[in-house]
């Protein structure tokens, strides 16, 4: 018996390793388009600061900077325009520092300083001379920015970046300039277009110039611009062409513009359908993930475990603790959290089963009350240890941002990963239940306890392990949820109802039911939401499930056999 169990746990751990490896593989995949990193550019720019300036220019530059410290936001915008127009060698460095909140004014000397941080050590350089300023306790005030100033700064910096060596920086610069394109920018872009080598940048410039040409006086040029924009899907293109339709008089341009608008609209409708479907699948995947542990404890074992939500919460807190332990490796800490959360929640689950649930088999009402008590205890425990405040779990770089398919359709990485993760967890669980001897015993015990015992299965031990497995999976769900929602003592409560809903809807005791049920509910909710609002959508789903359960008491996938008839 012991050997059997050991063999089994070896299989489980091998499966787990496989799971982790798969996740690592997914997690280390890097998105193609990295965003422009201004920090690097500051360093590149610092060498420029050293070049000597003619005296009168230096004075002009320092005058503008001195005013920057105390100016209002609108005055700051004028000053930054001056910095761009005059093109002082240090202009760009100052603009970047201002954008990055790293520009300071020394209160006593009136000098403007640029902060650079390396390995947690702060150093200040004079923005004009570039010399190192000793950080001797002098009183420095950060020069603040607001949204519109920051937006303008990005455009300003893009003008400098247009001539960068790095094609990614140039590409980013052209994209940035699209919002602010005027005659002078257009001239600059045309110049760049003639010397540009990179195809992507040329394409980006072509579109930007075409958008600019939509406002041209010449109807020929406008027509050419509309035709040049054929095939684009972006919002700015759409808006500009719709705006053109309002003012346009030339028949041919109107015809071309209408055709383009119609085509874009058709494509947009299609992609928005696709988008909603993805949202639905992703919401469904969260439901499945939260419910799948319950599908084992409630579905297979028949235990109404009200503390299921708290086991999810423990998984989320495990992620938080792992991040505290590995503050410099956010991505790694998330990956390590998966086995850690499985262990923590699994052990607590086994504890609950051995300490409470096993005395109450066959008495569902008492189990419900007892596990509810456990859930309150766990919540309060977490409140005492971690405070009632929500804890902040960081999202690793690789999980934030968008995977862009085209200009109107993009999916967020964190949702995509969680969707994939859900399928991996599901597959893992299915394998455990169907291909391992633990799974065999679990099914045997759940179908006929006496007979299983007669065949030599240690039912008590199987019960504990099954409960631990379900609980551990809940912990894994917590790791995923920590990336989406608050990590706080109430995390579990938010998901317990949904979890029961999914399991009951999908059919008690059936993993496939949970998967299909969760996904169905997710997709249906998301398709309803835009029409009736989130509140009503939730109500409709609940009513639907109530009616559905009236008609089909066993859920989507009724369990067949002895257990189903209550033996």
């Amino acid at each position: 018996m012991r050997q059997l169990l050991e063999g089994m746990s070896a299989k489980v751990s091998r499966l787990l390793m496989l799971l982790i490896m798969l996740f690592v593989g997914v997690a280390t995949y890097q998105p193609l388009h990295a965003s422009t990193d201004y920090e690097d550019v500051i360093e590149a720019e610092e060498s420029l600061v050293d070049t000597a300036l003619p005296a009168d220019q230096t004075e002009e530059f320092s005058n503008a900077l001195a005013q920057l410290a105390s100016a209002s936001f609108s005055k700051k915008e004028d000053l930054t325009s001056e910095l761009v127009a005059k093109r002082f060698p240090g202009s760009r460095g100052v603009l970047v520092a201002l954008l990055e909140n790293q520009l300071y004014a020394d209160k006593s000397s009136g000098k403007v300083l640029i902060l650079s941080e390396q390995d947690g050590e702060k150093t200040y350089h004079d923005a004009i001379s570039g010399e190192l300023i000793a950080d001797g306790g002098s009183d420095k005030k950060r020069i603040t920015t607001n949204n519109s100033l920051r937006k303008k700064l990005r455009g300003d910096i893009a003008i400098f970046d247009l001539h960068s060596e790095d094609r990614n920086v140039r590409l980013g610069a052209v994209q940035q300039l699209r919002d602010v394109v005027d005659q002078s920018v257009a001239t600059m872009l045309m110049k760049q277009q003639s010397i540009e080598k990179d195809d992507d940048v040329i394409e980006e410039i072509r579109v930007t110039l075409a958008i600019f040409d939509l406002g041209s006086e010449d109807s020929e040029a406008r027509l050419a611009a509309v035709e040049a924009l054929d095939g684009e899907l972006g919002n700015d293109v759409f808006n500009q062409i719709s705006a053109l339709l309002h003012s346009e008089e030339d028949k041919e341009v109107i015809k071309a513009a209408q055709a383009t608008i119609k085509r874009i609209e058709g494509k947009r409708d299609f992609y928005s359908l696709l988008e909603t479907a993805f949202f639905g699948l992703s919401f469904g995947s969260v439901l499945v993930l939260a419910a799948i542990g319950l599908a084992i404890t409630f579905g297979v074992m028949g235990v109404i475990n009200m503390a299921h939500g708290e086991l999810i919460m423990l998984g989320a807190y495990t992620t938080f603790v792992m991040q505290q332990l590995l503050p410099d490796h956010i991505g790694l800490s998330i990956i390590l959290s998966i086995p850690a959360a499985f262990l923590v929640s699994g052990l607590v689950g086994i504890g609950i089963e051995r300490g409470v649930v096993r005395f109450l088999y066959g008495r569902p009402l008492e189990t419900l009350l007892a596990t509810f008590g456990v859930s309150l205890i766990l919540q309060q425990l977490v409140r005492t240890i971690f405070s009632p405040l929500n804890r902040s779990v960081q999202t690793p770089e690789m999980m934030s941002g968008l995977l862009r398919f085209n200009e109107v359709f993009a999916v967020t990485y964190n949702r995509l990963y969680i969707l994939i993760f859900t399928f991996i967890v599901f597959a893992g669980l299915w394998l455990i239940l169907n291909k391992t001897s633990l799974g065999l015993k679990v099914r045997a015990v759940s179908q006929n306890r006496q007979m299983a015992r007669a065949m030599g299965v240690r039912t008590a031990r199987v019960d504990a392990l099954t409960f631990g497995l379900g609980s551990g999976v809940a912990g894994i769900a917590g790791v995923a949820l920590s990336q989406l929602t608050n990590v706080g003592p109430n995390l579990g409560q938010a998901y317990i109802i949904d979890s029961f809903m999914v399991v009951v809807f999908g059919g008690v005791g059936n993993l496939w039911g949970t998967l299909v049920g969760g996904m169905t509910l997710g997709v249906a909710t998301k398709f309803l939401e835009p029409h009736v609002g989130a509140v009503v959508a939730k109500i409709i789903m609940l009513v639907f499930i109530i009616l559905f359960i009236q008609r089909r008491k066993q859920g989507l996938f009724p369990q067949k056999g002895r257990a189903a008839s209550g033996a």
Partner: protein
Amino acid sequence: MSIRSRVARFAAACIAAGSITGMTAAHAADTIKVGVLHSLSGTMAISETTLKDTVLMMIEEQNKKGGLLGKKLEAVVVDPASNWPLFAEKARELLSVHDVDVVFGCWTSVSRKSVLPVFEELNGLLFYPVQYEGEESSRNVFYTGAAPNQQAIPAVDYLMNEVGVKRWVLAGTDYVYPRTTNKILEAYLKSKGVKDADIMINYTPFGHSDWQGIVSDIKKFGSAGKKTAVVSTINGDANVPFYKELGNQKISAEDIPVVAFSVGEEELSGIDTAPLVGHLAAWNYFQSVDVPVNSEFIESWKTFIKNPDRVTNDPMEATVIGFNLWAQAVEKTKTTDVDAVIDALPGLETPNMTGGTAKMLPNHHLTKPVLIGEIRDDGQVDVVWQTESEVPGDAWTDFLPESAVLEADWVDLKCGNYNTKTKKCSGQNY
């Protein structure tokens, strides 16, 4: 579910009852009793525990100065456990069992509405320290948080005039405060000539966590070529996934700024602020305001709570102002008698924590400065705009026809909802 909530209530009541008996047993009668009615467990514990500590800090400081009227102050802390009906029970207990002289408490509007009849029936005195939707003025309540004209309306003005916003998303959690605030804002926007097509209103349930569809709708709504902003009355926990989703879908504050009325320093301290940088918050106080009185306040809070990382926030300031005004009224009238204190309060002034003065008005609201700030990556907020002077709180908004005719004045009119057209007090006290 009903079993669950009943059990929750029972358990919470047990815990709360235990804590009270422990707290009050040993004290002599010769103290002034200050009731504290803030949730110490449940959903709202996150926000309300801080306010309980603030009141305790104020009591400690007052006692160091020798108390009031020669008596020491004594706190009576109860835990209504984020359970609205329990708020009413606990309020009754404070007033009739513990016989407290004043109560500081409540956070959500629904909890305030729940205790209101109790305070009026037993003639208690409540200081309510949180920004709320207005449309109320009770003789027994002093509202030290902002009314809509001290937070929501100026924030919209700022966006309209300074940022040039033309399209509006009003997003809120589905309950009384966002519903009423959005009703007022919608009326206000329309009075400013904003068309129906340029206003999108969206409500979500408490603790909503799947924002993909809604954020994507906002993105589509905001990409019609006009400057768009989101006015958020989304409550508490739901904010984190909301801002995360905004960040993930690459909606930056520079494109579509979100101005929030319930996100402050305390809420920011528990979350990853990266996706929030540049989004706006409208309050009457920010920890970052650099004036001596504020530095002192922050210092004494950090010392009291024994944690240098704790932050201060707007409802804390409102609690402090309320406490100081009450202490002042007690000293002025030389009694803690509720009626005398209520009559003495209007007209009293005390410094606020941003370098100005808070004055209690006859409608039981305060004068407050309005600050708009942009969230920084360290969880603090940079002030980008503020009103030139304090704005007097208006209990009944001027932008809803049914409220525009109402006026609250407890000094001359002795009425919380005097109808200036019919020249009648409706008789209802709130």
